[in-house]
């Protein structure tokens, strides 16, 4: 870095100036980084021309770089200080010439010499300030060495150009400083929102600056420079005050003019101005001029206005506030006491202001605390209660005490802090809280002393809260229950049932459910309970926890069980009885069998021997003996018949009667066949149109029809040919009625019911033989087949018997 001026700044002993002064001087010219100017470009052009050099510069050597105010042939406006040759040149008092820099050890390594532009020749004249400080050069450079240096003429020209450049710089510096000073003044006045004035009292001429016009919104120059014009713009309300102030100034009452008033702005509004001025007198002491300043204070006035409004608002708030607002100064003296405070404490504002707060409303036991708190804050700035909500007691004017809630804030007014307390009588809220607490306790008492067990469980069924009764039902203590879920103490057989329901409940699918279930008591026995489960939802309506109300129904359950057992016992007894009855029936059956077998055998013998007697020995008997024998035979026949009918009837009562679809026409045909085979041509019997199929047992039905037709044929007046007609009638509800109508003796209405009973006879055996069981068999047959029977008759006009059975549709 040979050639660097780095050794320069502080080692300037040999040159008579310090680098710091030099740089300071350079800064004063404010030339660095300014745009090219013709005055300086002319200088470089002349230098290049005269010196016949390809490069000419007006170079200013700054701390880290050199700046070219003007340049010819180099194309850049600055270079790093390390490459500067001028930095060497300025250390010379006069012209500095380097004929061949390549051979000059100071510059041989300079990049401008060694590489790049390969400069060889340099000649520069220093720019020296009036204080003798070199700040740069006017220099020329060439690519060729010039062993002869510059000609004398060229040297002189270069020096002259350096002086001319310096003169230019100096001129620019002075103009710049003036402009700056004016600018500063202008800025100061602008910041002041004011303008100066100077009014000549004799001529009435008042000088205002363009800014003055601007302040009033008047086009510059349009404002008349007269006092009268000024007076016309005064606000009517303020004009008297202005004139008074002016008068005071002129007659010497006031030392200076100092007045605030409104003047009209060109836009029609008013601006506030503050005018101050001094009266200047002539040699004779007569008032000559008033000079001073005008300040636009509109903004300040607005602020004042806002402040006033804010004060008014604050006052209104204090007035209207429901809370007591009390402000005290640092000495605990009351400075604010709003109407709410008046109402609450019973002291008027008048009475309260200036009093010590502690003496006025603070209970005796808290006075020390209050004073210590104040002292502590004043000493340390710490106030534990400041900004917090505090509840304590206060005292009214009448000495009564009541609860208050208050918040205190500290405010700085002037140097000393003030404290404002916002204070509220919370008597009624306390009462409400008390009521709530009481109701809460009542609820708790109810909960605890309820006859039902009550438990709250979380979403997993774990107990969160249980009442005493719940403990007593389950046998577990509260603590034991809180470590369990309801499933833990539920009977295993009921567990899943309850769980499933509970999950639905907690999923919000159901609002509530009830269940009869069992707990396993801590002591191991089963406890039956009625459970009513519901849930409590959160703000979003989702179930938060479950409520389970249980009632011990073990007693009821036991009663139910007993009832159930009783019913079972009853059932068992009925079964027993039924079994007995079945056995009895079986015995009866056996009895009937015995009758059929044992009773009929002697009848057969009786009949058989009587017949044998008649057949084998009839010839030896007289007519009477034979008649007796015939009567024995007849009696035997009757008895046999009787036994048979009884058997048939008893058989109908027992055993199963199997029903199937039966053709009415076919059964009737079979029955009639049987009757006419026994007694052919003894009756006229019609049967037609019996197309129906009925549900019946064919044998039983046939027997019933035989009985009816036999009766119809039998019960005719002597000598009458029986006429019997069978016909079917379809009744409602799917029934078919078979009518058996005769031309017989008929029945008296009083007998219509009786005749279907067993052994019921209306006529002597001699007149109309029969066992008296026939119609009983008919009725029992119909009953067993789900049908019915009946008769319509009138004495002497024939009878119309009917039986009714369920009709079977063809589809079956």
């Amino acid at each position, binding site marked *: 870095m040979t050639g660097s001026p780095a050794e320069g700044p502080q080692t300037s002993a040999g040159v008579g100036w310090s680098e710091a002064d030099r740089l300071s001087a350079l800064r004063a010219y404010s030339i660095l980084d300014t745009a090219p100017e013709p005055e300086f470009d002319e200088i470089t052009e002349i230098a290049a021309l005269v010196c016949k050099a390809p490069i000419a510069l007006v170079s200013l050597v700054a701390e880290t770089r050199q700046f070219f105010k003007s340049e010819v042939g180099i194309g850049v406006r600055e270079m790093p200080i390390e490459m500067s040759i001028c930095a060497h040149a300025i250390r010379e008092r006069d012209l500095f010439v380097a004929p061949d820099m390549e051979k000059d050890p100071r510059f041989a390594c300079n990049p401008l010499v060694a590489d790049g532009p390969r400069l060889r020749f340099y000649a520069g004249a220093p720019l020296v300030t009036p204080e003798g400080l070199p700040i740069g050069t006017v220099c020329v450079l060439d690519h060729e060495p010039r062993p002869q240096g510059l000609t004398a003429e060229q040297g002189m020209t270069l020096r002259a150009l350096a002086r001319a450049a310096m003169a230019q710089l100096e001129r620019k510096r002075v103009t710049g400083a003036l402009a700056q000073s004016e600018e500063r003044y202008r800025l100061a006045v602008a910041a002041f929102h004011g303008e100066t004035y100077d009014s000549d009292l004799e001529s009435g001429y008042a000088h205002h600056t363009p800014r003055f016009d601007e302040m009033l919104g008047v086009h510059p120059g349009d404002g008349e420079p007269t006092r009268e014009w000024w007076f016309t713009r005064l606000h009517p309300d303020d004009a008297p005050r202005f004139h008074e102030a002016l008068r005071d100034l002129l007659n010497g009452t006031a030392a200076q003019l100092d007045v605030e008033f409104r003047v009209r702005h060109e836009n029609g509004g008013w601006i506030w101005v503050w005018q101050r001025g001094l009266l200047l007198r002539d040699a004779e002491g007569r008032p000559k001029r008033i000079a001073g300043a005008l300040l636009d204070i509109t903004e300040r006035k607005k602020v004042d206005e806002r402040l006033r409004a804010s004060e008014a608002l604050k006052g209104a708030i204090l007035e209207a506030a429901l809370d007591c607002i009390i402000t005290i100064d640092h000495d605990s003296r009351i400075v604010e006491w709003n109407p709410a405070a008046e109402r609450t404490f019973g002291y008027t504002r008048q009475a309260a202001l200036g009093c010590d707060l502690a003496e006025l409303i603070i209970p005796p036991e808290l006075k020390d605390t209050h004073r210590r708190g104040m002292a502590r804050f004043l000493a340390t700035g710490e106030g534990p209660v400041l900004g917090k909500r505090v509840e304590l007691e206060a005292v009214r004017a009448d000495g009564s005490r009541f609860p208050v809630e208050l918040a205190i804030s500290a405010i700085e007014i002037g140097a000393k802090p003030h404290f404002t307390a916002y204070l509220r009588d919370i008597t009624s809220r306390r009462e409400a809280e008390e009521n709530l607490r009481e109701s809460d306790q009542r609820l708790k008492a109810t909960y605890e002393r309820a006859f039902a067990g009550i438990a709250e469980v979380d979403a997993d069924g774990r107990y969160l809260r249980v009442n005493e009764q719940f403990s007593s039902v389950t046998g577990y203590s509260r603590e034991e229950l809180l470590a369990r879920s309801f499933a833990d103490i539920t009977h295993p057989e009921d567990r899943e049932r309850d769980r499933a329901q509970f999950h639905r409940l907690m999923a919000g699918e159901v609002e509530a459910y009830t269940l009869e279930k069992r707990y396993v008591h801590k002591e191991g026995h089963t406890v039956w309970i009625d459970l009513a489960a519901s849930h409590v939802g959160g703000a979003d309506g989702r179930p938060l926890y479950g409520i389970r109300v249980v009632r011990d129904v073990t007693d009821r359950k036991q009663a139910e069980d007993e009832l159930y057992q009783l019913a079972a016992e009853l059932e068992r007894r009925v079964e027993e009885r039924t079994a007995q009855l079945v056995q009895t029936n079986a015995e009866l059956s056996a009895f009937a069998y015995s009758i059929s*077998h044992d009773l009929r055998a002697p009848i057969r*013998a009786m*009949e058989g021997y009587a017949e044998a007697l008649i057949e084998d020995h009839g010839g030896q008997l007289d007519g009477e003996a034979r008649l007796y024998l015939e009567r024995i035979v007849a009696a035997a026949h009757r008895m*046999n018949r009787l036994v048979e009918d009884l058997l048939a009837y008893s058989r109908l009562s027992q055993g199963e009667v199997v029903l199937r679809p039966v053709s009415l026409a076919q059964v009737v045909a079979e029955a009639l066949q049987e009757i006419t085979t026994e007694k052919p041509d003894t009756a006229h019997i019609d049967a037609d149109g019996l197309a129906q199929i009925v549900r019946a047992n064919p044998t039983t039905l046939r027997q019933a029809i035989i009985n009816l037709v036999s009766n119809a044929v039998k019960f005719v007046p002597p000598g009458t040919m029986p006429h019997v007609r069978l016909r079917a009638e379809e009744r409602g509800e799917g029934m078919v009625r078979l009518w058996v109508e005769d031309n017989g003796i008929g029945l008296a209405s009083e007998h219509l019911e009786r005749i279907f009973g067993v052994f019921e006879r209306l006529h002597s055996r001699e007149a109309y033989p029969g066992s008296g069981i026939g119609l009983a068999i008919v009725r029992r047959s119909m009953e067993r087949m789900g049908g019915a029977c009946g008769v319509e008759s009138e004495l002497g006009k024939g009878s119309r018997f009917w039986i009714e059975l369920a009709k079977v549709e063809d589809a079956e």
Partner: protein
Amino acid sequence: MRGEAILVVDDDPDDAHLLMRALRKAGIASPVPHVGDGDAAIAYLSGAAPFQDREEHPLPKLVLLDLKLPRRSGHEVLEWVRAQPGLRRLPIVVLTSSGQRSDIARAYDLGANSYLVKPATTGELNELVRAVHAYWIRLNMSAQVDAHESR
């Protein structure tokens, strides 16, 4: 050849008497031996004492068997007969006063060839006897029966 005997098994002497009278009246010449209980019936059929003499007590072509018998019932006799290799094809007609369905079914189950209820009147009895003889003795072809076949 006296092989057309009809064995009557009936405990009621009146019934048996009137039955045999009816057979006689119907002009049936077959011998009609009579025993009064089940044991006797089995003894007769197996040729046990006092019925060893087959000349005196020939093996019947038909048995008319009552069901309600002392000692051994008609059903038991039926069962025994059907269990005897030499006798099991012997035609047996039940003739009883019971018309009970259970008796009828059991009789057929045990191998009765027919089931008849004792008629209530003499006229009916005569008719029955004639029909039985006509059918079972004259028309029906019976298998060879030999009480000692398997012995």
